[in-house]
């Protein structure tokens, strides 16, 4: 029971700090003279224009720069060549061979139903006339993932073999994972401009961390005895790596590849902003023209691709784990030989009779009914008659009582108060170092001239996070008490987590029109799974002995929840909230595209107008904001962690 007392002390102290913060804030507001408002615009250090000048110089001199002539250009040309070759190859194969081929592979690994579903999925791409875009997206993804693996596995191996490399790499990987995908586009843009290769490079960089992490982890997790056995037979270090470490790390590496694929897919739409083309561009254009039906069609195609690739790479992980152990070799290969032969025959037949394209007559679209539904929804769901019910009044309510006052307060109230408040929260969450970091960070945001925009984004983030917690926490608690609810929720949460962030915007725009509110709603949907999941997990993993002990004192259910389960589950719940905050931020930034305003919109403007400087300023502010929020929520979670002596 000692752990209980320790923890409830940890629970009360933050409350005292919070009280202190409120008092401090009140005091500051009273004491500061009138007239100190938003961060003074004349303190803008003009970082953006400077970046633009560098870029100008870069562009006008790039023909003479060695890095371009001998490195970037050849690199970019060969990647481009690879991409095109792969794309042409895929396009040359008749569509029905693709459908059947994917069905065959999935059928083998995931059973007959899996094969049929996958074939149907492939049919979707062709039948909706999205074939070319799908092939583009798929090729870009494949090449990006292949590059990420080609870079990530060796780096992961290095990290596993040298603690020194690992220590250097870890903070980099950590911060890479907290940054919204958006941010990666901006520096790439500076060096490469808008085209497919830069978008591919951004994808590779964004998707790289999981392979590195999990390769490193997989190798480090090889049991010591296994290593010692390898060494004792006199393996050279190369033999040890090839024969002992790598084979045992395969499942972990494949799990990393799975995550990498999902990450690469999740930035498909964003990468389209700098010229990735494909399905992402389709969604982007459709959204710009407010053609919701078309956006849904392409968005669904991305979701489909995500789900299929996820299943596929998951089953790869399974295959890796079995090590192909349980099939006898002959049987294993015969299936593939036969299937491959039939498919090749089909392809050749198609080429000879010249029937390779999907017949236009059979094409299919459900954009029109959706557009109809959207119009209907706009006319009818927006407001029910004159009643204050519907999405319109709901957004108005959220705007009036949530985002607007918060935004106005944050951006127009005296800026030192905001800086100090941030500093205080940071100090309370983790100590002096973070206090300093967040004060410097917020001031830098001001100096970049992004104060008002950042406060706008921050206010949206706060409102969305609060909503996610208010909805997610009770759902998590409920799920922890009812197995059927947990089981029912799991596939929903799984799906929410596989859908690329951008696709959330589409349905939300249908219902809520454009503006800040749809962005917030999309963020809540996108970011809610971790709170629900981890609340459920945290409560379920409370030591049953402690719960029984409390029951023996005759607590009510409510007392049990508030006095025992929630406090003990707090570290886990807070870890969930940390993830939620980061997801919300990533989404709020993207929502700039549907009128979300704030930093996201500014970054998009920068990208769209080739005002890289502006993009840089907005991007840097996003990075700073993300880092501060991440560290604060992590520090907060760490506070609730029981002291380590208590853990054993």
């Amino acid at each position, binding site marked *: 029971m000692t752990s209980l007392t320790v923890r409830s002390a940890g629970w009360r102290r933050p409350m005292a700090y919070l009280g202190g913060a409120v008092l401090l804030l009140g005091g500051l507001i009273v004491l500061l003279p009138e007239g100190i408002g938003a961060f003074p615009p004349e303190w803008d250090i003009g970082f953006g224009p400077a970046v633009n000048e560098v870029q100008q110089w870069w562009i006008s001199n790039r023909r003479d720069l060695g890095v371009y002539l001998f490195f970037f250009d050849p690199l970019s040309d060969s990647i481009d060549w690879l991409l095109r070759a792969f794309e042409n190859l895929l396009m040359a194969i008749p569509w029905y061979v693709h459908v059947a081929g994917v069905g065959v592979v999935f059928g083998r690994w995931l059973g007959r139903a899996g094969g049929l579903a996958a074939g149907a999925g492939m049919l979707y791409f062709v039948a909706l006339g999205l074939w070319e875009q799908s092939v583009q997206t798929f090729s870009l993804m494949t090449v990006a993932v292949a590059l990420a693996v080609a870079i990530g596995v060796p780096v992961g191996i290095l990290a596993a073999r040298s603690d020194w490399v690992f220590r250097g790499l870890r903070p980099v990987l950590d911060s890479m994972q907290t940054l919204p995908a958006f941010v990666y586009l901006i520096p790439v843009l500076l060096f490469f401009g808008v085209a497919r290769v830069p978008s591919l490079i951004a994808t590779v960089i964004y998707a790289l961390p999981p392979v590195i992490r999990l390769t490193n982890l997989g190798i480090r997790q090889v*049991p010591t*005895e*296994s290593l*010692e*056995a*390898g*060494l*004792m*037979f*006199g*393996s*050279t270090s190369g*033999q040890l790596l090839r*024969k*002992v470490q790598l*084979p*045992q790390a*395969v499942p972990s590496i494949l799990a990393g590849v799975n995550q990498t694929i999902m990450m690469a897919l999740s930035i498909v739409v964003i990468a389209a902003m700098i010229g990735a083309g494909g399905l992402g561009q389709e969604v982007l254009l459709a959204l710009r023209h407010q053609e919701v039906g078309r956006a849904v069609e392409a968005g669904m195609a991305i979701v489909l691709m995500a789900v299929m690739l996820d299943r596929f790479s998951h089953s790869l992980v399974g295959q890796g784990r079995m*090590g192909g*152990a349980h099939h006898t070799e002959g049987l294993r290969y015969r299936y593939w030989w036969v299937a491959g032969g039939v498919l090749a025959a089909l392809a050749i037949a198609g080429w000879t009779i010249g029937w390779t394209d999907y017949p236009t007559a059979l094409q299919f679209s459900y954009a029109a009914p959706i557009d109809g539904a959207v119009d209907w929804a706009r006319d009818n769901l927006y407001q029910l008659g004159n009643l204050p019910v519907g999405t319109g009044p709901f957004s108005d309510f959220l705007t009036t009582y949530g985002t607007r006052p918060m935004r106005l307060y944050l951006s127009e109230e005296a800026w030192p108060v905001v800086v100090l408040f941030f500093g205080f929260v940071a100090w309370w969450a983790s100590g002096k170092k973070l206090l300093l970091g967040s004060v410097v960070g917020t001031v830098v945001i001001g100096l970049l001239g992004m104060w008002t925009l950042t406060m706008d984004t921050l206010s949206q983030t706060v409102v969305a996070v609060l909503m996610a917690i208010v909805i997610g926490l009770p759902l998590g608690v409920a799920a922890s008490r009812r197995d059927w609810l947990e089981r029912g929720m799991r596939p929903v949460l799984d799906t929410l987590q596989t859908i690329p962030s951008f696709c959330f915007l589409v349905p939300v725009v249908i219902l809520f029109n454009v503006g800040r509110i749809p962005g917030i709603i999309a963020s809540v949907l996108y970011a809610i799974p971790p709170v629900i999941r981890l609340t459920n997990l945290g409560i379920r993993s409370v030591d049953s002995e402690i719960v029984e002990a409390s029951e023996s004192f005759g607590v009510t259910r409510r007392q049990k929840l508030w006095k025992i389960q929630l406090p003990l589950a707090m570290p886990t719940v807070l870890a969930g909230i940390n993830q939620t905050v980061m997801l919300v931020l990533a989404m709020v930034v993207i929502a700039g595209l549907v009128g979300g305003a704030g930093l996201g919109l500014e970054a998009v403007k920068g990208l769209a107008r080739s005002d890289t400087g502006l993009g840089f300023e907005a991007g840097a502010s996003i990075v700073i904001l993300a880092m501060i929020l991440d560290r604060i929520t992590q520090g907060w979670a760490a506070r609730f962690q029981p002291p380590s002596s208590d853990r054993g």
Partner: protein
Amino acid sequence: MADSEEHSNSPSDRPILASGVWKVFGKRVADAMAMARDKVDQSEILAKSGCVVAVQDATFEVNWGEIFVVMGLSGSGKSTLIRCLSRLVDATAGRIVINGQDLGEMPELELRELRRHTISMVFQNYGLFPHRRVIDNVAFGLEVRGATKEDRYQKAEEMIELVGLDGWASNYPEQLSGGMKQRVGLARALAVDPEILLFDEPFSALDPLIRRDMQDELLGLQERLRCTMVFITHDFSEALKLGDRIAIMRSGAIVQVGTPEEIVAHPADDYVRDFTIDVPRHKVLSAGTVMAGVSPDMVLEGEPVAVSARLDAILPRLLTEGRPVPVVDERGERCGVLEPAVVSRYLWRQ
């Protein structure tokens, strides 16, 4: 494989010689060693210097073809010691000589050759490669040193048969029981024809009955192969059963080295004596150890017994006849006498 007759067992020709071996984990090595020399106990050294003195000043030698058992409680440094013998762990101080070569000064390449041809090891948790079939596990040592696929599979098949796993060659380790896994570990170690075999608690993870089978099998193998074995265990009865000689470790130091009989008959201190309490002494002690001296003119009746005879064979006679029994040496000459009173003192000491 080594034949004990080929070797003289002179000091320069011992398979393993260890003198003054230390292993200290941590940074302030010198402080920790100084404290250990002053008999400060381990937990205090850890608190003061942050170092763990896992092995301190270990000196012993292993003879050709014997099973040398290292026995001690958990955490007494046995694993660390045996890992020093193959340089899986670098000793902090001291000298280890394998086959006349100084291990500490051996360059990487020679060390690798030594491990490829001379020393093999069997691990507590088997240390099998889960991604390789049984046969590929067994053939690993040969593969690493560059044998052709044909050669190594042939040898591996032989070894698999030797340990009684015929028919399991193409299974994966996870499909085997614990006892079978350790047979694979053994076959893998034997496949490279080592002169020296190191065992780090190989049978600790096995059920008692299977453990007994494996012990018997190991003794059988030793009869046939005659290689030098260093065997680690925390089980004193296992040590008695397998060991030609036993070293007893406590907190990193070797407190006594001797034959099972010497240790049971004359434990060096209370720590060692504690282990011997539950030992059925009549199965360990021999006539030579417990006999009393005899004057040439003493008249003794009855059939004499050999010095090497175990007490459990003599006791029934001693108890029923109730009078002293003469003991004769290898040449048949009388060298002592078994007095019931003296014998009972050995058997029921304490």
